[in-house]
């Protein structure tokens, strides 16, 4: 059985505040963590399958609307919510571990340990930390500030002066934008040597900043290369970039979202994307066409027209949601899901008759009821004293409901009542009052309602 997790799992743990995080990463429709989350135009997020099924279940006469705010929703306007998908993935991966930690006995609680530790930190250690921080500052300033040469002697002035180093960074940022300029003059070697000797050029910054081999990133595409190469590369790079942007603005006209440069390599376009299935205007298909359409899709083609339509609608939702998934299932698995769904539907149809739709039950079983009532009447007449005679309908009701007279109510009812007994005895005490009542209710009411039909 699948494990059902719930945001309330966090209550009573040491991290109850995770309840809100947990619940905001769940789809409001299926109450489970988002699977292939998609966002509506009204900025609400649901699982791909949930919102697709929701739209598919809207009667054709009505416009589909957002389950949360009732704003109109169009399936083609749904957009993948990649950030949420990643969040869910990482949270789900970590959830069990966090839960275990959160449920550990208070003995292991880190709070006292931390507080004592922070109080007991020896002054030398503290000094050490500060020194380390100073060193960091120093490194930053040496690497970032052009005046780094004279900085080593003025430690006190620099202590904690982050602001300054940011400002320096900004200055450098501005400078580095002009970095192509020196190349134009063909002075590269000179610049480099002066830079290494304590110059104020930006190269020293770039070099110390993680490009120790003297490589510089291309300002357009960030690919690292030697300064010489950059110059040649830049022209091509600009052209390439322009072409890309032109392509994107074209595609964004048709597809909607403009993908940023960074997100492009991240999205898994290497996989061959699954084709989405179109919805059908069922009015345009006669039965045989619809059947052949289902066969074409590899689906079973038996059943009534309603069943065919339902099956197709469900399949389109399943298929398209699967196409949205990062780990799509095989068609075989999808077909199994479809089969599960359909058998569940069939199971309900039977239940519905037996438990829910009393009128339908009354109609389909009217013969049984007539039979039972006739027998009951006979028995009543046999048994009743002349003084006790009442209205016939009243006695029938009395007869069928009375458990003492089971034997009079025909074998079927006896069987049913026996099965109720079995069910009741199998139940826990707690639910006894509910279960008993509703079960007898469902079985006893039909005769009454059939009475009303008569």
């Amino acid at each position, binding site marked *: *059985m*699948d*494990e*059902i*997790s*719930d945001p*309330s*799992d966090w*209550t*009573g*743990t040491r991290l109850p505040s995770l309840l809100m995080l947990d619940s905001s990463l769940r789809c*409001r*429709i*299926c*109450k*489970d963590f988002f699977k292939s989350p998609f966002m509506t135009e009204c900025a609400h997020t649901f699982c791909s399958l*949930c919102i697709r*099924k*929701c739209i598919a*279940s809207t009667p054709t006469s009505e416009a589909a609307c957002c*389950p*949360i705010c*009732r704003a109109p929703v169009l399936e083609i306007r749904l957009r993948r919510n990649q950030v949420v998908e990643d969040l869910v993935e990482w949270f789900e991966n970590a959830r*069990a571990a966090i*839960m275990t930690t959160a*449920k550990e006995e208070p003995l292991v609680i880190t709070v006292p340990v931390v507080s004592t530790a922070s109080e007991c930190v020896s002054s030398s250690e503290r000094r050490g930390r500060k020194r380390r921080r100073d060193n960091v500052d120093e490194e930053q300033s040496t690497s970032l500030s052009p005046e780094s040469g004279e900085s080593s002697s003025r430690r006190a002035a620099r202590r904690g002066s982050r602001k300054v180093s940011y400002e320096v960074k900004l200055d450098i940022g501005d400078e580095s934008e002009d970095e192509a300029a020196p190349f134009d003059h063909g002075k590269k070697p000179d610049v480099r040597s002066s830079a290494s000797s304590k110059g104020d050029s930006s190269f020293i910054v770039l070099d110390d900043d993680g490009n120790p081999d003297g490589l510089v990133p291309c300002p357009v595409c960030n690919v690292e290369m030697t300064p010489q190469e950059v110059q040649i590369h830049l022209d091509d790079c600009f052209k390439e970039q322009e072409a890309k942007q032109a392509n994107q603005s074209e595609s964004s006209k048709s597809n909607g979202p403009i993908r940023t440069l960074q997100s492009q390599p991240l999205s898994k376009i290497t996989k061959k994307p699954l084709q989405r299935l179109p919805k059908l205007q069922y009015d345009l298909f006669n039965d045989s066409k619809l059947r052949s359409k289902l066969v074409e899709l590899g689906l079973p083609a038996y059943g009534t027209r309603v069943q065919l339509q339902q099956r197709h609608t469900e399949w389109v939702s399943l298929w398209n949601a699967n196409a949205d998934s990062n780990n799509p299932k095989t068609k075989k698995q999808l077909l199994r899901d479809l089969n*599960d*769904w359909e058998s*569940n*539907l069939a*199971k*309900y149809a039977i*239940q*519905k008759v037996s*438990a*829910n739709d009393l009128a339908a039950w009354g109609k389909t079983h009217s013969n049984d009821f007539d039979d039972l009532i006739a027998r009951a009447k006979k028995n009543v007449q046999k048994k009743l004293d002349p003084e006790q005679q009442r209205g016939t309908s009243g006695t029938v009701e009395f007869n069928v409901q009375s458990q003492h007279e089971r034997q009079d109510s025909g074998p079927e009812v006896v069987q049913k009542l026996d099965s109720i007994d079995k*069910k009741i005895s199998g*139940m*826990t005490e*707690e*639910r006894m*009052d*509910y*279960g*008993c*009542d*509703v*079960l007898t*209710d469902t079985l006893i009411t039909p005769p009454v309602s059939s009475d009303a039909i008569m």
Partner: protein
Amino acid sequence: MDSQNTTPTTFSSHKMQDAPTAMADSHSVTKRLQSELMQLMMSNVPGISAFPVSDSNLCQWTGTISGPEGTFYEGLTYKISMTFPPNYPYHAPVIRFVSPMWHPNVDMSGNICLDILKEKWSAIYNVQTILLSLQSLLGEPNNASPLNAQAADLWDGNPAEYKRLMMTHYKDIGEINDE
């Protein structure tokens, strides 16, 4: 099952063992209903309760609603049945009053006229929101489209008579369960 079975409060862990373990299938309906059951038990909202009728059928629930304070129904408890369709939550469950209910928007067989159970149903509604909506319906009927015209008339016209007639129909849950 382990992680939620070890949930902290004794109440929940005790209940969880009773929770439908017989469900072998992983249909979204049963899964969703299991979530709802857990949520309902954990949140423990006063005045409402609901539980599946049996282990084998999670699609049939029974619940109770207490009349809200300051209404004719204060202090009374009503029993309802809930039947969840296989396409739940995309379609609304069928909710019926099992207790006799005398109310402008409830007919004599317990059928309820409430927009969120019909055309205004939304897939994000759940057992808890339904029960709370029903509870507030008791205090704020929609007298514009009554199922019980007499009740709708008396609601504003003659509160004393309303209360009297309502009480003649009322049956205690204990009585209903004994029947």
